[in-house]
């Protein structure tokens, strides 16, 4: 339908223009034609300035993340999916059942509406897959050159069952460290796209929702202490953060860490360390030794956790430091990386 109802002779049904962000007729049209059909839910359709939902008694978790990944589309996902899964995962690793999301968009003038629709449709599918609803949002438009096509922010809330209180502070020496799967798939996929590299062996981003995986781990291990999803900065950042906050040391074994052949090849080629490369569908769990095996078994029954395994344990030696037994049998420190190895990865 390209009947213009406003006097501006711009093909507003093809590209984003400044008017789409100014709250007037164009904004309304974008809402009607793009966001509402995709995000269909009662709260959103009420059309109020806020999304309203019922909350059970108990604790509510809230999380937010912004997405600036470049390129927008890549094998295994796109910026829209990342925006939904990322926030869902941040809630899930806290033991919360993700329920509602907000979505804020900053669009660059000139962005193809078709591209926007594809992204929004992806978000709709992703949300349904996770059982969450996008109940409120915002759209702003910036002049051409002032933003890189599209930035997305999502914030989310989830409900935490009573009795669950996951935190780095709970982590204790003796806890086993469980990793849900192979490292570096997302980061290397993005690098390959940017560099126009040919990838053998079906490599794609591991972008995925982890709510079912977390639920399985939790159910199998009532004494689970903490979980963390891995994103930028890779496994190393997540381990070091927990080491810092819990005050404990950690030891992992290089031989236990799964890395696909393609990711290994790319890392060798570019001098990257898989421990520091970004992931978008992996998590770590800290589980007391007695329940670790059960947790791994339960995780392996879930698609996103089919390669789950124990990669190390928490120790009272070298507090706040993460060390690794190398494939050579020597021990080395796994430190926080000073800078991002690869920019704009998620």
């Amino acid at each position, binding site marked *: 339908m390209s009947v213009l109802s406003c006097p501006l002779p711009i093909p507003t049904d093809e590209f984003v223009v400044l008017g789409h962000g100014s709250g007037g007729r164009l904004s309304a049209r974008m809402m009607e034609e793009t966001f509402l059909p995709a995000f269909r839910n009662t709260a959103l359709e009420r059309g109020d300035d806020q999304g309203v939902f019922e909350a059970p008694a108990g604790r509510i978790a809230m999380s937010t993340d912004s997405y600036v990944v470049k390129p927008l589309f890549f094998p295994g996902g796109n910026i829209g999916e990342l925006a939904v899964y990322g926030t869902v995962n941040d809630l899930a690793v806290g033991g919360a059942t993700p329920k509602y999301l907000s979505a804020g968009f900053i669009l660059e003038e000139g962005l193809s509406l078709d591209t926007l629709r594809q992204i929004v449709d992806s978000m709709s599918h992703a949300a349904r897959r996770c059982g969450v609803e996008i109940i409120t949002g915002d759209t702003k438009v910036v002049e051409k050159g002032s933003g890189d096509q599209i930035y997305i922010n999502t914030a989310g809330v989830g409900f935490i069952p009573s009795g669950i209180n996951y935190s780095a502070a709970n982590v204790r020496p003796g806890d086993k460290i469980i990793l849900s799967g192979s490292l570096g798939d997302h980061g290397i996929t993005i690098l390959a796209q940017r560099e126009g590299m040919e990838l053998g062996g079906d490599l794609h981003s591991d972008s995925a929702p982890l709510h079912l995986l977390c639920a399985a781990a939790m159910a199998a291990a009532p004494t689970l202490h903490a979980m963390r999803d891995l994103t930028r900065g890779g496994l190393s950042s997540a381990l070091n953060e927990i080491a810092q906050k819990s005050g404990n040391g950690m030891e992992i074994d290089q031989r236990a860490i799964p890395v696909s052949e393609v990711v290994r090849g790319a890392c060798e080629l570019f001098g990257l360390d898989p421990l520091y490369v970004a992931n978008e569908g992996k998590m770590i769990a800290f589980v007391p030794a007695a329940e670790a095996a059960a947790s791994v078994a339960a995780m392996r029954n879930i698609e996103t956790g089919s390669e789950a395994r124990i990669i190390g344990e928490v120790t009272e030696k070298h507090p706040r430091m993460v060390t690794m037994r190398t494939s*050579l049998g020597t021990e080395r420190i796994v430190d926080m990386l000073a800078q991002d190895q690869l920019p704009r990865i998620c």
Partner: protein
Amino acid sequence: MKHLDEYRDEKIANALVAKLKSKATKPWVLMEVCGGQTHTLVRYGIDGLLPAGMEMIHGPGCPVCVTPLETIDKALTLAEMPNVILATYGDMMRVPGSTTDLLHVKAKGGNVRMVYSPLDALKIARENPSREIVFFGVGFETTAPPNAAAVWQAGRQGITNFSLLASHVLVPPALRALLSDSGNRVQGLIAPGHVCSIVGLDDYHSIAHEFHLPIVVGGFEPVDLLEAIVLLVDQLESGRAEVENQYSRSVRVEGNPLAQTMLTDVLEVCDRKWRGLGEIPKSGLKVRAKYAAWDAEAKFGLADKFVEEPKECISAMILQGRKKPPECSAFGVRCTPERPLGAPMVSSEGACAAYYQYRRYESAAELAGGAR
């Protein structure tokens, strides 16, 4: 990965270490030249596996680290020119010049691009005919033939908007300077494997002879380096001073003649200043006059200026192997990868960066790689 994983095998490594311990009767002092070799040693904690007293001195084999401040400033000047696109490898982006670095120039709007090959830079030149593309080429003899090839291809394809800012250095003259110094303690040398795969072994025979120094051409994986160390100790224990080739799967005695031909066609030997070591005669390469149209120095008329190093940086001592990074007062405190005072902290092959990433807590006795 084939031809890689096998050289990280724990059993083989342990066997080599055991062999070493049974052979070594003295606290030998050895040097590895190449930054890549330094990185492997530190990353795998190999120097900690050596018999007590044996020491590895880390040589000046990090081309980024030895690039003088003046040269970096030239690159920065070019990057700030409105019509220029400066292309270089990732490492060079964070090396500080006297006032800023390429990453900051990029952030302020300068056109700086990270590439993985000089041919990528040539491609950018082809795709941007109205801009001037300068490739900032830093490296040893391994990197020189590829850079020379890019210039040669530019000439052949009539690409006039491409030029090379060359900062090439040669290993043998620097080695001679280090070995001639009165404070030199090096008793055995691991020669740089990939450099030798290009230039061959002739230069190293001369050095072994001149200084009565055992030399083993070594690879870059843990097993390669351990095997090279075993061979060196063997020579030292029996009083020999020869050139042996541990990296024989990739290094031929004559090197790569085609690469050598390209190198000498496009580049010629010149005097070169090494950061931390000073000027060493006939230790660098520059673009020959016949290719002046692709020589950024000639094209842009960049003047040489003298620049002073930050006072606290002891990169000179580090590059000469006289001090180890933790002995620097600024190490980890005022000099970090985020705020480096000198190049060895920035380059991934720099000794300071390697120590910072893997050995920052050297004092923690439990974490030390073993007996020293």
